[in-house]
């Protein structure tokens, strides 16, 4: 039988379709592989620090933990980790709260600790939620921290229960326990 023109062109069309689908498969696999390779490079080869959600240990933390007897709250745990994060925030603010401050490492005031010690924070905590003459109303500890971020740290206002604020409160609480402060404790008093 003589092959009719229609069947001939149909067969050609079929072959073209098959070739196209094979190419498509090749393209897609190439795309996926290149994406995966890119991600692997970013993680391993690019030198950028990988974001992890655990709290990194800064030098000085162990000493701080020993000084303020934080083992009372356990060696590890949610609260202790939050206090550790608070420690990082207070002493290395520019690194751990980069979103809320424009300060960088070289600035004179680059962290909360540039102006406050941990004990200042503890006393501030037990004296918070009181009327503040400068502001004209009762100011909570969180609000005071927010004002610090916005003002002296030349930054922005974090949300009130953002860990950048909460963990500083927890640090203050932990230090206040060590100092055995009670509500309203005054410096130098009993």
């Amino acid at each position, binding site marked *: 039988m003589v092959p009719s023109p229609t069947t001939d062109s149909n067969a050609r069309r079929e072959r073209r379709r098959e070739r196209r689908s094979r190419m*498509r498969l090749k393209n*897609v696999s190439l*795309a*996926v592989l*290149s*994406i*995966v390779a890119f*991600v692997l490079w*970013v*993680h391993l080869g*690019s030198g*950028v*620090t*990988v*974001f*992890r*959600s*655990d*709290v990194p240990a800064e030098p000085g933390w162990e000493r701080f933990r020993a000084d303020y007897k934080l083992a009372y709250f356990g060696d590890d745990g949610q609260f202790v980790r939050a206090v550790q*994060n608070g420690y990082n925030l207070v002493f290395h603010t520019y690194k751990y709260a*980069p*979103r*809320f*401050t*424009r300060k960088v490492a070289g600035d004179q005031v680059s962290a909360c600790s540039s102006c406050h010690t941990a004990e200042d924070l503890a006393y501030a905590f037990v004296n918070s939620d009181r009327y503040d003459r400068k*502001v004209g109303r009762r100011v909570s500890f969180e*609000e005071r921290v*927010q*004002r610090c971020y*916005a*003002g002296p740290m030349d*930054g*922005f*206002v*974090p*949300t*009130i*229960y*953002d*860990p*950048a604020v*909460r963990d500083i409160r927890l640090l203050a609480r932990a230090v206040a326990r060590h100092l055995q402060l009670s509500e309203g404790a005054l410096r130098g008093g009993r």
Partner: protein
Amino acid sequence: MKARALKYQAILWQHWPRLNGDLVVGLTLALVTIPQAVAFSVTLAGVPPHFGIYAAIWGVLFCALLNPSRVFHGGPNNSMSAAIGVILLPIAPPFGAEYMGYALTLGLMAGLIQLMFYAVRPLGRMLDLISEPVINGFICGIGLFLIFKSLTTFGGLPLNTEVEWPLWIAWHSFLALTEIGNMYAIEIGLITLVTCVIAQQFERLRNWAILLGIAAGTLYSQILTATVGLENTGVEQIGNLASIGFITPSLPIFRQEAMPDIIAIVPGAVTLALLGLFQTVAAMRRMSRKVGGFTDSRRAIFSDAVSNCVLPFLSSLPTCASFNRMWLVHRLGIHSRIAIAISALWVMVLVLFFAGVIAIIPMPAMAAVIILLGINMLKWEDIKPHLKNRREAVVFIGSFLSVLFLDLFEAVILGSIVAIAYAKWEQAHPNISLQGNVLKIRGNIYYGSLPVVESMYHGAIASRDKLVIDLSECYYIDHEGIRWLAAAKRAGKATFIDRRSGSDRRGVADADTADGSSREPGAVVHRRSKPDRRRRSDF
């Protein structure tokens, strides 16, 4: 040498109009996407802004690479971001490192589930059974939900973490806004909202409405900062983006101690995956219908799934198709993946250059943008067609209410079940009419519809000697149906007719029997390509 340079110049000149067009479209798309990306991540998902920005860069790039459709635009999505926010609310306080880790884990699990939908074909097919009214019902419900959830941020109030989120809380959020909201935040939010809505009224400004609103809000916020001081206004802002570079590799949480929380968010991951898939499939379907052209939705699912599996390692929100942005691309007249990829690069460039400006955008303005987007999701023109048909109306209202009153996960599952169930219910009630002694069945005779068919049949033969059963518009008879027909034949009271002609039908050519109900002029005649399986001799 010079000849080659001239040659390249000639090529560039030849493609320049198109490249130029792509650049402009890319820029427009980037300017529209950036505020959305920032707003979604910060207001809805509770993660820092770079999550949304990376979704707008890398998510769009990866989708453009993997999805062959020319109009597909992925990127951050408001429903998925809202879902992330709701799912993680009881898990960790927003914006913290732990929260971000869980968001990445959630995205990764959602991506893997979407990959499963791609790999297992029947699952993907089930998505097609989720009809348009269901998805529109979800979208409308989520639109309302977006409005209510943004109320607290609109007024500078903290979100109530750990608290479940039923709809009626919205009323008390509104009251809290009026009673204890930050007045400066409310002012900024109102200015943004009013500017956006006014700009939307004018055809020319519609694309730029959100940017104008944000500009107005930011301007007012800067005035406040200059006069009153940021410490005193207490207005939250996006925050410093300077430390964020082109890319930030990240690792989702997957530790033993996090297992209870991870297991708790698995239903949330299913919800997230389904939301993304629904929206992608629906957007592709609508675009294909409006624009012409066709891309298999499986390809879209594949591209979504792969990019959602990869994006959690790049500090990014999960992505899915955005019908609004795709429609914008189409209206701007360019149909090419290059333009979409260029928009991702524009986002990168703009963010790097304007980080300082983005940093001072106030959160209430972002909340106002979300409220506006929520209002836009409640378009009456999209809702009206569904309310015309009763079945669609029931399904639409059902899925709309389920989003509002149930947990998101339950809503998605329930909506899907309702859609499928209603379809089956419809099928199970064929249209049966009895005129004289002709019982005409329009629809399918199968186990689901047999009870209805049989009851009408028995009612009919009880009052008549002879009955003619007209199967002309019956499209499908299953084995159970055949058994019933055989029994009816044996009983002897009924005769069967089928007015469809056909030389392809075997058996007795004279379909019209003793009753003389002959082929009427104008009767519908069906020609089948396959031989008619139902032979006369079977009866």
